């Protein structure tokens, strides 16, 4: 049977991906260029019996999805620039209290109000370090509308599996770009539901790590009753300041990522095997990069593309391996040098690494990348 197809904006594809994943709650606050995510959710969620709420600000939107998630709902919010800055407080709460949720950031120029309708990739570091304190981070950066759909589904899966907030980074270009997408049938894409508690209610501890680093999260309103706090907590969820408990807790949070990198990381490699120059690009700009690689190949230059789809955790090991074979690495991004810092760090600069930064609200063109590659060779 032919699949259902549609011409969708990236933001719309994101919303439909969320619905496919079983999202039943959206809390938001309007902001360009993310608003279409909210608009689709406001229309589609009630059809499925789900709930859409427009809150009084982005902090409240973030709070509402955490409250909803604690009742067992898969919950989503979407925003951009200033709104994402406001959400940071409770992204930290989601980390420490280990509450699954998905945050879509359709990146725009900044800081502050910046360029509301201008594309940007300048929140890459914010996605990792935006909220205070040491904390785990997962951020995905899809490139096409089809991939925005499937990566949004994966974002929900990762949020549920690792019990934490997951960010999907779009930008003004791929958020608003229209492409043909094929709707996956139920079952085509993996959908992971929350691990349920199996111990008796009396024995349930929301942060009991005796069975592993990711304890099951029971729902409010079930037969399990427990306490949630943003303070450092012991296994039973109650605050503690015992050094050994706090230390173990903090380390476990980071271990959720470190011990599961292989399952979380996802990259695409294009003409990489014999590549002498590797272009590292993500999201919208990876499309320019791919085009540039084709142009370069036609001219006999051995260029290849490494496209991290998971930006956080950054694919350290693979990036380091690739650096070993390359004569040079070029990192085009719509910011003044963010992911390039990771590339430099993990490759220990074994080869020359050049960035292309662009923050004028225009995308980086294939021609810019071609020129830079020729320059570094």
């Amino acid at each position, binding site marked *: 049977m032919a699949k259902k197809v549609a011409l969708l904006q990236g933001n719309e594809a994101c919303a439909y991906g969320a619905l496919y994943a079983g999202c039943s709650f959206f809390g938001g606050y309007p902001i360009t260029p993310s608003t279409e995510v909210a608009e689709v959710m406001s229309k589609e969620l009630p059809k499925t019996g789900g709930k859409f709420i427009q*809150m009084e600000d982005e*902090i*409240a939107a973030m709070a*509402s999805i955490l*409250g909803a998630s604690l009742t067992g709902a898969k919950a989503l919010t979407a925003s951009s620039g200033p709104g994402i800055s406001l959400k940071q*407080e409770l992204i930290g709460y989601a980390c420490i209290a280990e509450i699954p949720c998905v945050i879509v950031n359709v990146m725009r120029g900044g800081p502050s109000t910046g360029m509301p309708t201008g594309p940007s990739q300048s929140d890459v570091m914010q996605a990792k370090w935006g909220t205070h304190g040491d904390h785990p981070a997962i951020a995905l950066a899809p490139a096409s509308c089809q991939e925005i759909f499937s990566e949004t589904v994966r974002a929900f899966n990762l949020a549920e599996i690792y019990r934490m907030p997951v960010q999907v980074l779009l930008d003004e270009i791929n958020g608003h770009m229209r492409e043909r997408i094929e709707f996956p049938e139920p079952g085509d894409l993996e959908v992971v539901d929350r691990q349920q508690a199996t111990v008796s209610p009396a024995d349930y501890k929301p942060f009991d790590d005796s069975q592993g680093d990711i304890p099951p999260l029971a729902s409010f309103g079930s037969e399990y009753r427990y*306490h949630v706090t943003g303070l450092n907590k012991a296994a039973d969820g109650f605050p503690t300041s015992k050094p050994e408990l706090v230390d173990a807790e903090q380390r476990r949070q980071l271990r959720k990522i470190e011990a599961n990198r292989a399952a979380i990381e996802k990259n695409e490699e294009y003409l990489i095997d014999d590549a002498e120059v590797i272009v590292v690009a993500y999201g919208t700009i990876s499309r320019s990069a791919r085009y540039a690689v084709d142009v370069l190949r036609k001219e006999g230059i051995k260029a290849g593309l490494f496209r991290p789809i998971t930006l956080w955790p950054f694919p350290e090991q693979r990036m380091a391996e690739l650096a070993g074979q390359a004569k040079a690495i070029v990192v085009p991004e719509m910011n003044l040098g963010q992911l390039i810092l990771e590339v430099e760090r993990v490759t220990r600069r074994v080869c020359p690494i050049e960035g292309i930064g662009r923050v004028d609200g225009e995308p980086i063109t294939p021609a810019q990348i071609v020129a830079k590659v020729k320059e570094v060779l």
Partner: protein
Amino acid sequence: MAFDYEQYLRPGKLPHIWCPGCGHGIVMKGLLRAIDTCGLEKNNTAIVSGIGCASRLPGYVDFNTLHTAHGRAAAFATGIKMAKPEMDVLVVGGDGDGVAIGGNHFIHACRRNIDMTYVLLNNYIYGMTGGQFSPCTPTWAKASTTPYGNPDPIFDVPKLAIGAGATFVARTTAFHATQIDKLIAAGLRHKGMAVIEVLDDCPTAYGRRNKFRSVVDMMKRLKEIAVPVKAAAHMTPEQLEGKVLTGILHQEERPEYCEQYQQVIARAQGA
């Protein structure tokens, strides 16, 4: 028979963090009596708070409890209630938490008239951080950040709640302990946003600085300033100077938010 508080207290979580003479414990007891009166089920009840001494209350009581971030309790609670309307949702927290940093969430929860019960413990001060002034600290009172007296005017919490659209608004004080549970119970029974302000005392961070020699003095003041709404009807503005009205200050019927949203669902589904 004496009320059995133990049935609602979490074993092993006492002693609480509150100072001797702090009014928050009196409010907690009233809250538990109200919950008992209304027959709320532990598993079906969520108690949500922000940050502050008052906001530590949920940790001691045996329900689904959520100690959120400073000021954000009403917004978290809104998410819980929307996602699971069958749950009974309460918010507890301080004056600073509720109407300073959380003011925006507070008024919008009132406006939506979402079915929850918000107990605001107003001790006129930021207790937990050592006594800085809050939006409820009386003008010219002393706080650690108003060494020359507080130039700010106050928020009248019930007026704020009524103005914002809460459909049940009441006030009492920690001195009037038996009224606390009656008003909270009435709020719990009310369908829609219920706000119960309980004026209480913070001897540590407010009393000492403001020439209250003892907790008894602070309690006496609560007793003296409280005027039941009915009695106030027969009093002159001069007689009411410096007093606060207590009892149910406002009650009306208005569509409740989760029910409104059920209509959205019905419309979306083509009913």
